[in-house]
């Protein structure tokens, strides 16, 4: 750096005296207000440090005169949200399904909450969209073992199926082979009969013998025509919908070992309004409700 001022000929402005490939930078002075704004920000920051939480200390931080805390505000907001929700929840558990359906806000609240609850509690067995897997029913179709009305669904969710509750839904498919109730040959005949009534290919002679056996052993639950009864949770055997499978092998397995799938009673885990929301979701949004 030389000590001589260098003035740009063209503009009459002093230069910074740095030169890059013959290009010099003009040393145009900044406007005074610019630096004043910087001073103002410094004053502001002092005020900020005094008023607001600012400086970290070894254990804690300076709280500031205003005692402002984002964390506290979140806590208050969460509290508020719970209060708002509990009013809605209260309304939900006191309403009938028709009232819920008739109220835009309440229905939306029930569906949104139901969707979350379904994801948290039901998806593991029934699948993400309630499409079910072997042994766990599909909730999207209109085939319902225990009934697909809103009240039926709500009852199943509340008390469960073959669960540990006095009011649980109960029906038992005995293990006809394992417990030696029927002879192996008789079981084969029954399998042929079930194949026959479900519209599949079957051995006519064997199936005929099976029909007699069916009337004696199975019709009390599955009905004389094998169309099932909901009060016993006995599925319809004449349709194409199978909980465990409709092939000869699987039907044999079912009759031989019995089937007693369990769904827990959710009344101990979920509150009344949550069960309400979940029932609305399953009944309306999954598409199978009656």
């Amino acid at each position, binding site marked *: 750096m030389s*000590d001589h*001022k260098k003035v740009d000929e063209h503009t009459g402005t*002093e230069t910074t005296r740095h030169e890059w490939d013959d290009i010099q930078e003009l040393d145009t*002075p*900044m*406007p*005074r*207000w*610019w*630096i004043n704004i910087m001073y103002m920000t410094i004053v502001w920051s002092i005020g900020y440090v005094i008023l607001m939480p600012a400086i970290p200390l070894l254990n804690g931080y300076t709280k500031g005169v205003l005692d402002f805390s984002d964390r506290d505000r979140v806590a208050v907001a969460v509290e508020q949200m719970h209060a708002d929700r509990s009013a809605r929840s209260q309304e939900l558990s006191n309403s009938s399904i028709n009232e819920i*359906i008739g109220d835009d806000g309440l*229905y939306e609240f029930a569906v949104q909450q139901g969707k979350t609850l379904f994801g948290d509690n039901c998806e593991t067995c029934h*699948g*993400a*969209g*309630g*499409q079910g897997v072997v042994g766990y029913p*599909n909730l*999207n*179709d*209109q*085939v319902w073992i225990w009934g697909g009305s809103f009240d039926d669904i709500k009852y199943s969710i509340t008390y469960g199926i073959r669960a540990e509750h006095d009011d649980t839904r109960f029906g038992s498919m005995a293990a006809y082979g394992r417990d030696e109730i029927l002879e192996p040959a008789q079981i084969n005949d029954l399998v042929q009969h079930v194949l026959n009534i479900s519209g599949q290919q079957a051995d006519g002679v064997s199936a005929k013998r099976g029909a007699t056996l069916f009337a004696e052993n199975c019709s009390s639950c599955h009905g004389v025509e094998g169309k099932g009864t909901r009060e016993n949770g006995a599925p*319809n055997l004449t*349709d*194409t*919908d199978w909980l465990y499978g409709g092939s000869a092998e699987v039907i044999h397995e079912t009759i031989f070992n019995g089937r007693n799938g369990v769904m827990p009673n959710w009344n101990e885990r979920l509150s009344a309004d949550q069960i309400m929301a979940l029932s609305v979701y399953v009944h*309306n*949004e999954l*598409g199978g*409700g009656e």
Partner: protein
Amino acid sequence: MSDGKQKTKRGEAAPGIKKSRWEAKTKSTPVKPDSLYKNRTKIFPKRVKGTFRRIKWIALFAMLGIYYFIPFLRWDRGPDAPSQAVLIDFENARFYFFFIEIWPQEVYYITGLLILAAIGLFLASALFGRLWCGFACPQTIWTDLFIAVERFFEGDRNARIKLEKSKWTPAKIYKKTAKHIVWLLIAFATGGAWILYFHDAYDVMAHFFTGGSPMTAYVFVAMLTFTTYALAGFMREQICIYMCPWPRIQAAMTDEEALNVTYRFDRGEPRGPHKKGATWEGRGDCIDCRQCIAVCPTGIDIREGLQLECIGCSLCIDACDEIMVKIGRPTGLIAYDTGINIKRRQDGKPSAYHLIRARTIAYALIILAVGAVMLYGLSHRSVLDLNVLRVRAPNYVTLGDNYIQNGYTVKILNKQAKPLKFKVEAVDLIDDPAGLTITEARFKKHGDKIILEVPANETINYKLFLAVKDVSSLSDREDFYFKITDMSDSNNTQQTPTVFVTGKDK
């Protein structure tokens, strides 16, 4: 820097100068180092009369009038929509502009508007330089208004300069206080008018002064009051020179044929005072009266040529013309002209004005094209929209009676101010209407066509299930349309493509 210079000199001090004297001298008058910062030189623009001043007054009143009074205009949109002609309704996510109503989905109209604004600026620049800065920019308009207020209380240029230098007397205190009060009132009206664009103007007027408006309203009014007061009262040309990006962009947008406020030095030079009756031979028309400098709101000398600080307000043209008339010379020593014309005249050629040239034609065409697209879009704007989202978990469901079912979330946008009923059907899927059932989840309406209600001015979601009895004629993924038709107006219809999955390939 200067200190160092002095030291070197002192070190070299020499023949004939005693060291002690030198020191005494430097002590009594220490050399002040150059400041890194430049204080604002206060500008006292002189009042001027003339064509351009008149145009500027008209522009000022027109634009401030538009700004302050538009929120009070009404526009009937029926009982379900606000009746304010221009309203940016953030709460309900709507923008209303007379007959135009824009939903958040249609924000691309804003893009179009911004393109038009930008190219409009480019075109104005290519034609007449900083037309925007000089006549239409809010900074210029409010500064102009504030200067008028200042002049009303403190008098014209010379009186103001005198007042500025004078001691504080009751008269000075009165003048300054009155000026600032009026400034603050204008600034408050500016901030106040701003919030009227976001809520019903009459409603805001009724509640604002009783403390019934939301906090944001007061914050915005306070902010805009402060910025108007500070920017138009104190910052003025500093905004144009230091803060605004436009002068820099302008440099790229202008060309040698763009008309700018120009001092025609080919006619004005050599300048100098002129005695009445003396000859005009051998000298220029500029009598160096400095009126162009006195009226300039940015305090520059236009005779130094086109410069960044010039906002193209044309007041120097008025000032110069007035003088030219007085001294009996033709007007237009300062005028809208180009540097290249000056050169042409110096070369003995006539002036030439090329307003229509490649650049301006291109800008005009872009404006026309974008304007046409927007006009088409607005006049053909659909008042109905339908979005379909297929449910993917489960992809499809086999029902007990062999129907195959798919789920869809259907979103209907009814942009009309009345509730409507829509017939919903699946078209291009299967021919036999009896072989298909649409079921709505919430109300369990079902049939081969169903009727759904959509409230006025709303978007509503419905979950639908579509079940097909016989999928033998369909592929694994069959394309079809959901179609909705307004029950009251069969022309108001919309269809959206989606897919029906049969699961055949599995």
